[in-house]
């Protein structure tokens, strides 16, 4: 009696141990990947948070002589304001260095401020202007002033002025709205994500509008209507292979066909979206077919047995059940398209584009390409822009996935 349940004790222990080991291996693997994700997110956030603020310098500008905006020579006014702030600066070289405290865009900033508040004319107000990126980096603590002067961009004289401004309270840090509202720039303190964001959204719109209906139609035909034949096998193999083709090949195809043969506008979201659609199509077809296959055949039999036609069966019963799965597949494909750089480079979406695109045929760039361009720039200020742009890209991906989840929950029906 006592032997009951105990005969294989040693063996049983080993089995339980192996189960225990396997569980912990799994947990470790998950912890490990979560850890790396956390490290990545934290480091990008730390690097990128600088892009959300920028340094501004307060200057007292002399507008007493001006009665209209046209009377103001913005550049000269700012120069005089700077020289008045630092009267000790006299030499030509130092004067030139002094002018570099301000961002090249500050003349326009003056004009904009006067435009917004014409009462400034005839006065000598104290206004805030965007500082150049070296100063911006200094205020963010990114410049190591313990290093010898010849090893840093920010020279000692400039540093003296900045510290003087700081002690007078004429240096502040503000939220950098320009990052979200302006296009690319050669000056890191002026560069923004907006044109790339719009370019990405336009491209993805084209991509979705083309690949989703086409993909679903193709999947529906292959799965619900076509007879199994050597041709359908051939098509299936090709679709599976296309899903694995490197994206740059689609870029080459787009360049050869859309740009050279059809003469569509280069660098445009239209062509970008078409290329991305080519790339996404196989993914959507495969996901949609899987979704269709998961619809129980009994539903089809029920509808056909009622005398529904094939099209009625498909559109009334099968498609609604498969749609959540199709949407998930489409969003996965779109997310991949959103992060794609190589094919867009091939069709010229890598150009330096300052203006925000107004339509599908305007020259544009996209978020990942913008990240790639910034990552390639030597100025330190672009480092934080790169990280911040990555965060924006990740944010967009999260939003897309949330949309997918919401749509899936909304359409999901149990059967």
């Amino acid at each position, binding site marked *: 009696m006592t032997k009951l349940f105990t005969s294989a004790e040693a063996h049983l222990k080993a089995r339980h141990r192996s189960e225990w080991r396997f569980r912990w291996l799994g947990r470790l693997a998950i912890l490990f990947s979560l850890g790396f994700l956390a490290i990545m997110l934290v480091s990008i956030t730390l690097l990128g948070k600088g892009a959300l603020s920028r340094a501004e310098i307060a200057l007292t500008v002399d507008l007493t002589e001006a009665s209209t905006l046209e009377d103001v020579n913005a550049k000269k006014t700012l120069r005089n304001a700077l020289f008045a702030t630092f009267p000790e600066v006299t030499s030509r070289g130092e004067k030139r260095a002094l002018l570099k405290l301000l961002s090249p865009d500050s003349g326009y900033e003056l004009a904009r401020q006067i435009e917004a508040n014409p009462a400034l004319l005839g006065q000598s107000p104290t206004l805030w202007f965007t500082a150049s990126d070296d100063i911006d980096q200094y205020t963010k603590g990114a410049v190591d002033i313990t290093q010898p002067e010849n090893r840093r961009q920010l020279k000692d004289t400039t540093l003296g002025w900045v510290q003087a401004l700081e002690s007078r309270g004429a240096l502040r840090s503000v939220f950098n709205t320009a990052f979200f509202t302006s296009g690319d720039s050669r000056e890191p303190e002026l560069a923004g994500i907006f044109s790339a964001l719009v370019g990405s959204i336009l491209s993805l719109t084209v991509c979705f509008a083309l690949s989703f209906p086409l993909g679903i139609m193709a999947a529906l035909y292959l799965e619900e209507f076509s007879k199994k034949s050597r041709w359908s096998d051939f098509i299936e193999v090709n679709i599976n292979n296309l899903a694995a083709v490197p994206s740059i090949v689609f870029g080459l195809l787009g360049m050869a066909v859309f740009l050279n043969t059809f003469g569509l506008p280069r660098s445009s979201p239209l062509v970008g979206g078409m290329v991305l659609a080519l790339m996404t199509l196989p993914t959507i077809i495969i996901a949609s077919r899987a979704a269709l296959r998961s619809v129980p055949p*009994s539903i089809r*039999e029920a509808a056909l047995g*009622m*005398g529904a036609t094939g099209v009625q069966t498909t559109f009334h019963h099968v498609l609604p059940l498969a749609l959540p799965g199709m949407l998930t597949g489409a969003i996965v494909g779109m997310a991949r398209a959103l992060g794609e750089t190589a094919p867009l480079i091939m069709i010229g979406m890598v150009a330096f584009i300052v203006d925000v695109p107004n339509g599908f045929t305007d020259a544009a760039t996209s978020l990942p390409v913008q990240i790639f361009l910034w990552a390639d720039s030597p100025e330190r200020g672009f480092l934080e822009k790169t990280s911040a742009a990555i965060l924006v890209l990740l944010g967009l991906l999260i939003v897309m996935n949330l949309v997918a989840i919401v749509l899936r929950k909304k359409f999901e029906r149990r059967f």
Partner: protein
Amino acid sequence: MSKDPIITARDVNVFYGDKQALNGISLDVPRHKVTSLIGPSGCGKSTFLRSINRMNDLVDICRVEGDIKIEGKNIYDKDVDVVALRAHVGMVFQKPNPFPKSIFENVIYGPKIHGLIKSKSDAEEIVEKSLRRAGLWKEVADRLQEPGTSLSGGQQQRLCIARAIAVQPSIILMDEPASALDPIATAVIEELIDELRAKYTIIIVTHSMQQAARVSQRTAFFHMGDLVEAGPTKELFTTPKDERTQNYISGRIG
């Protein structure tokens, strides 16, 4: 053979690819009676059933030879519209398969696609009539908008029957309609089949000889693709002519 049969099958051969599943079946199905098809698994009874409303068309490799005439018209003629045929010959499947929609929509779907409803009151009338006939009305009258899949297995199967009769077929094919149900639900379905006989011709495939004996007036015994014997149920079970039938009903094969 009986007088004025609604279905007459002559020399029906069915092939799946190179494999022959039915060998020259000839069978008459009498009007307003329940005919049961019995036989061991893989004997071809379901294949024969599915030939009657051409559900076999859905199988790419399936080929049907011979004549199956309904009301004198060969359903495999070129001018026969499968959609119209299936409206005339309803089907109830082995596993209850209501659409993942409301009870109301389940019943009204067939009439809707066949253009049988003109107004909202039409729809309500058809739904009520069909559910009443399927003996489900009392149970679901106050929850027509709930999903059909929320019903119990037996109720779901009766919903499928209601769905089938909503398009006013003259023949209902049932492919082991009670095999997924418990004995009580089975008894309810069997009773229902007996009531439906007054209005419809019913052909039922069943694995249970007791069920065949209980519900059907005529029985056809299939074995390995052959129709071995067909006749009035009582005769077939008490005095089978063929040795194979004898062996099957006494439990020696099958």
